[in-house]
């Protein structure tokens, strides 16, 4: 099964990977290894360098520096060979709207040099997998956003890829469609397909990724399992209290000692603590009665915002 010359199960090995355009550095020296069957997530705000990293892995963008090996081969010299073994789900669907669902799958299989017989059998399997059997002869134009997305994923599986790359797989989908997609992706993961996922949905990362990195300005800010990252960069719980936008700042000084860390936002105060209920009770004992209060577990989103900041990056 394993044909990587190093004898390990390393599917992707990057060291000091860099990509610069004229005067802009998109990826600024990142190191990572992805092993077989792993589900690896790249998180980061827009412009963090996620898509550029994905393009370099998919061998459609040449690196400026560092090394990048996929399935044991250098991406600069073995692009077509590497791509023949990958599945790519781009950020924006690029299905052929003039062809039907089945034709889209068929023609894509041909790009890998697959035979008619193999493709036809595979198409049936994938139609079922993507829950598109009833739409098999429909033109792509008539499909909903979720269906198109599932078709794009099915298409990327036609060659039974060793690594499936998903660039923001569920952006723009409604909750039902997202959950169906997650279920499909989870099945692939169970089958041992290595997944590389970029997303800015934290729940998606928590659902799908064994390990993830938070990327910002072309660099890795943190790396670990979803739970590990929360533990490492955040307290166990968060109390969100609102005293009204005028009073928040004034109250903050009186409760600073209760929290491990305090974040004052225009509309609310976030208190990072280890025991939310206890500290909320202490606050009330001091005669401070917030308009609304909420105690919750820390999430990946807290980690993400802490590491990449709250300002808008568009």
């Amino acid at each position, binding site marked *: 099964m394993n044909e990587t010359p190093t004898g390990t199960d390393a599917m992707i090995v990057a060291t000091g990977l860099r990509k610069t355009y004229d005067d802009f550095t998109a990826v600024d020296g990142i190191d990572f290894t992805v092993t077989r069957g792993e589900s690896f997530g790249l998180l980061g705000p827009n412009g963090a360098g996620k898509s550029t990293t994905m393009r370099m892995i998919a061998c459609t963008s040449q690196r400026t520096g560092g090394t990048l090996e996929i399935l044991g081969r250098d991406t600069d010299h073995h692009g077509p060979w590497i791509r023949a*073994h990958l599945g790519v789900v781009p950020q924006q669907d690029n299905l*052929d709207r003039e062809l039907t669902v089945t034709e889209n799958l068929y023609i894509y299989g041909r790009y890998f040099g*697959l035979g008619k017989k193999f493709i036809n059998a595979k198409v049936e399997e994938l139609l079922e997998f993507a829950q598109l059997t009833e739409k098999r002869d429909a033109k792509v134009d008539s499909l909903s956003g979720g269906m198109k997305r599932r078709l794009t994923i099915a298409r990327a599986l036609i060659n039974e890829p060793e690594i499936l790359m998903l660039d923001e797989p569920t952006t723009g989908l409604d909750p039902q469609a997202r959950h169906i997609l997650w279920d499909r992706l989870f099945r692939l993961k169970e089958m041992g397909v290595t997944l590389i996922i970029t997303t800015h949905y934290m729940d998606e990362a928590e659902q799908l990724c064994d390990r993830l990195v938070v990327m910002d300005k072309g660099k890795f800010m943190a790396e670990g399992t979803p739970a590990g990252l929360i533990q490492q960069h955040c307290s166990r719980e968060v109390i969100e209290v609102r005293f009204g936008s005028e009073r928040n700042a004034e109250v903050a000084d009186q409760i600073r000692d209760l929290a491990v860390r305090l974040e004052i936002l225009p509309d609310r105060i976030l208190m990072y603590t280890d025991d939310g209920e206890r500290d909320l009770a202490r606050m009330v004992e001091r005669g401070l009665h917030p308009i609304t209060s909420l105690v919750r577990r820390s999430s990946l989103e807290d980690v993400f915002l802490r590491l990449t900041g709250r300002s808008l990056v568009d």
Partner: protein
Amino acid sequence: MTVVSEQSRTWQGALKVVDSQRAIRFGWWYVAEYRLRNLMKWISAVIAFGIGNPVLYLASIGFGVGSLVNHHGNGLGPDGVPYLTFLAPALLATAAIQSTFEEVTFPTMHGLKWENVYYAMTATAVTPNQIATGVMVVAFLRGLFTTIIYWVVLAIAGAFHSPTALLAIPAGMIAGVSFAAVMLALTLRFIDSQNFLASIGRFVITPLFMFSGTFFPLSAIPIWLRWIGWISPLWHATDLGRVLMYGRAVPGWLVATHAIYLVVLGAVAFIIAQRQITKKMTK
């Protein structure tokens, strides 16, 4: 390895499923296959256009203008042959150019701008260079198809008087392929400009058609307009077609120039097109 679930019994992985050597070698053909499949959806339009176009030109220029010209020259047109015979190689080359032009420009816009389908191709073993090659292969096939239909219509109309008339097809096709390579390079270069396709039609195709010795020998127009013919693949192909078809008296060096010009123009343009598409698709 993780536990393999029920549905995945057949999953073997790409390293086993894909014959990477074959995928890498024949990528250009898979691109062509895709284009042909797309084209088949419009096949009736392609055929109708292929027949309708020559019939229109035959009726108006061939018979209408032809009767005037022939009347003037005691039944013969330029070069001492009937006007329709004189016109036929030009019409064939024009048909070749027109159809290959459509086959390189619109699919390329579709692939890189309107729908991004070329980007789906380069996510597989297919390379940008192979896309360019595949597009040219289909342009050639479509040009050949159209030219053959055109030739048959002209034959029925009585334009040909010797078996060498068949040679007008390859003469026209050299121009078709050569011009297609130029258009492919230009399309790739100006893909982001708004009115590229419309401008090409108005400012390149139409003047070429008018001033390439199509309806009259190039020597009939003032010298300061003849340069359009000299650079035009259409003139080179038309003149070559006339030599091959009915033995028009042209010096040997000029015949060689026609052939070399078309081949070199096409080859250089194709190399440029490959560079353009690779640059565009691998940022």
